[in-house]
């Protein structure tokens, strides 16, 4: 009442408000049901708010773990390629990212290093199919020497395989043999189209060793090459088939696209050994009415020429092609063909 005297106007308003509240409250008090429902809603609303807030609160992480988080980030940022070098070197810890690349002077393939140490310069230009523009004569000579020695070695050992192809009596690999060859392929990846896919489908190698897109031209397999190179392989085998004749108008364009993929590999790791399988021809039956596919020997010749002038090693498969080994589609091959392929490729890797 004291207030009423001192500030008349405002107090009158207050009194009116108070009276209104008093009325509504007494209304509510009169009806217990109303009261119960009101209380229920208040509690419900409060809890809902509480849990919504607690849900938001959970996502906050604190600063105490910052050092640990930084450690995990640093661990994850380690360069796998450098760690591989350290492992091969016999356990020198990788402290930081300052270690020099490509220190394997003892590697017979070291002659290939200079070729595309700078990947960008080596990418084949329009019409140019050679990826080794930067190669010195000395390096080329050394590389050829190594390649020739390897070919001679393979030639000397492939007699039994050639006999199997001649007689067409090709025994499938036993589990032990398969396991052995898988070990030979441990640091090798196969990249290509359906021809490479078969290596995976027949169970010769697992998904970490084969990267393919069925029906895709070699020029569009850049993503597969990147994925394959993330496995830090010491060798890459390209195995791509007749899609090239469909996709590229001329053998030169085909070889240029192939050169790009080879360069991509060497740009990522110049020490990688690159093997390129021949483009196998269609079956005689199919060649009769598929003239486009029948041009494959021209494309294969271009591929062979590319390999001759580049660090990539051409892996000739034409000696393995027999009409009886084709699948009914006249393009792909059955398991027997791949059984020989696996053993033949292993000769290059050993």
């Amino acid at each position, binding site marked *: 009442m004291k207030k009423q005297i001192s500030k008349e106007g405002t107090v009158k308003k207050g009194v009116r408000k108070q009276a209104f509240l008093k009325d509504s409250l007494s209304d509510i008090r009169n009806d217990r049901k109303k009261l119960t429902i009101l209380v229920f809603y208040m509690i419900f609303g409060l809890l809902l708010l509480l849990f919504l807030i607690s849900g938001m609160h959970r996502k906050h992480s604190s600063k105490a773990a910052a050092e*640990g988080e930084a450690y995990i980030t640093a661990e994850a940022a380690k360069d796998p390629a450098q*760690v591989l070098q350290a492992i091969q070197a016999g356990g020198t810890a990788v402290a930081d990212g300052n270690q020099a690349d490509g220190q394997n002077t003892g590697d017979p393939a070291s002659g290939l290093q200079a070729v595309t140490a700078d990947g960008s310069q080596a990418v084949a230009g329009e019409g140019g199919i050679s990826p080794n523009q930067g190669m010195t004569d000395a390096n080329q000579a050394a590389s050829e020497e190594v390649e020739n020695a390897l070919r001679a070695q393979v030639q000397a050992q492939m007699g039994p395989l050639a006999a199997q192809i001649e007689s067409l009596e090709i025994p499938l690999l036993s589990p032990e043999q398969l396991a052995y060859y*898988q070990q030979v392929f441990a640091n090798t990846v196969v990249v290509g189209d359906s021809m490479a896919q078969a290596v995976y489908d027949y169970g010769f190698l697992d998904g970490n060793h084969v990267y393919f897109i069925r029906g895709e031209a070699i020029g569009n397999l850049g993503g597969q090459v990147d994925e394959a190179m993330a496995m830090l392989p010491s060798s890459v085998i390209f195995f791509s088939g007749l899609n090239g004749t469909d996709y590229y108008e001329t053998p030169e364009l085909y070889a240029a696209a192939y050169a790009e993929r080879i360069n991509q590999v060497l740009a990522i790791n110049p020490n990688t050994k690159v093997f390129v399988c021949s483009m196998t021809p269609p079956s005689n039956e199919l060649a009769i009415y598929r003239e486009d596919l029948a041009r494959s020997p021209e494309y294969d010749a271009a591929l062979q020429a590319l390999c001759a002038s580049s660090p990539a090693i051409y892996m000739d498969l034409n000696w393995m092609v027999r009409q009886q080994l084709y699948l009914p589609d006249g393009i792909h091959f059955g398991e027997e063909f791949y059984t020989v392929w696996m053993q033949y490729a292993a000769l290059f890797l050993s």
Partner: protein
Amino acid sequence: MITKQTNNQTIKQTKNQNKKQGRGISPENKRFYKNLGRIFAIFFCGFFLLHVILPDGDMSASEKRMLNRFPSISKGSVFSGSFGEDFEEYASDQMPFRDAFVSLKTFADSVTGKKESQGVYRGKGGFLIEKMNEPDPAVLETTTEAIRKLTGMYPSSYSFVLVPNAVSIYKEKLPAFAPTASQEAYSAALGEKLAPAGVQFLDLTEALMAAKETVDPLYYRTDHHWTTQAAYACRPAIDGTLGNPTEGNWSPLLVSDSFIGSLASKSGFSSRKTDSIYVYVPETPVNYLISGSSREGKQASLYSEEGLKSNDPYTVFLGGNDGYLHIETDQAGKGSLLVFKDSYFNCYLPFLLHEYETIDVIDPRYFCDDLQSLLLQNQYRNVLFFYDVNTFSEDTSLSLVLGELAEKEESTVLPEGVSDTAGTVPEQGELVTGEVEQ
């Protein structure tokens, strides 16, 4: 007659009165009920509209599962009733404020004294403990039989490390009279069955009980896993079983203190306290590379940054469970290890890196590669089974993977002493000369 008439009159009068008064509702109250009705109508329509307007979620972060999406309508699905069922699941999964309602329900349950939800006990101090279900003896028999067959086929040094769960180590934290199966009995039965196969069996109960005084906590409060601290404390026991020395100093490093684990989301019991995840950093670093069946390329770290920042920070270890992992280290000449494991092993793996040149890790639940080829390619110095009791007692995937291997072996009829042929020149020896290039 007179009395009857008067009675009838009084009844009629009261009926009329009732009508006038709106069956006992005063005019003021009538207005209130009308408004209440409106509020309910707005409430329901509002929820419906929110449901339609708000985008549907893909995944429930707290439950760690995919939520149901709107089912496709077709004649067949409507008439078969499957559309109705799917729609009901969709409606309950995509309801607005779903998580809040789930928490509210659990809160209400805990207020009314409910101590168990989805097989999870709310223990003392809000410690969540998963109970052990009664193990199926048939599952135990099949699995141990499969392990026995494996030991017969591939000679190596076999060990089995069984980690008890919180339900066994933190018994005092369980609510009073909480029923649960005995892990000790299970462990004893397993050890007995594995003994004839020559498998060294290590039950970590003793080691964990001994560490209980000094290491706290041994298990996460909100998750079913053991802590890295507990794993570290068990190192000497495990190294002893594997025949490795326990060397080197490791320092713990806190990587997350806002971890809310799977038990919290599974049960819905909210916990005011969050868990802390530690990793151990070795004094002597080791170089290693890891690749796996569901990984792209090789990585130089066992820890996953994405995992740490995800809704399940325990996946900081190995980024979760891969079917097959291959690890190569710089510890040349120390032999190789094959592990069959569940997620308890994920935080223990770093402690093994200094002891082996290669480590192959198989999680049979997700494994679909060729085990036979793996065994033929390697001569494992140690083969280790690493499981926690709860998972192992219900696991059927290990016996499936090993059973498949046994079938393959039988169908190919291998010469005796398979391990002798592994890594040597196969039958067509003349094709292969020189050493295998790595």
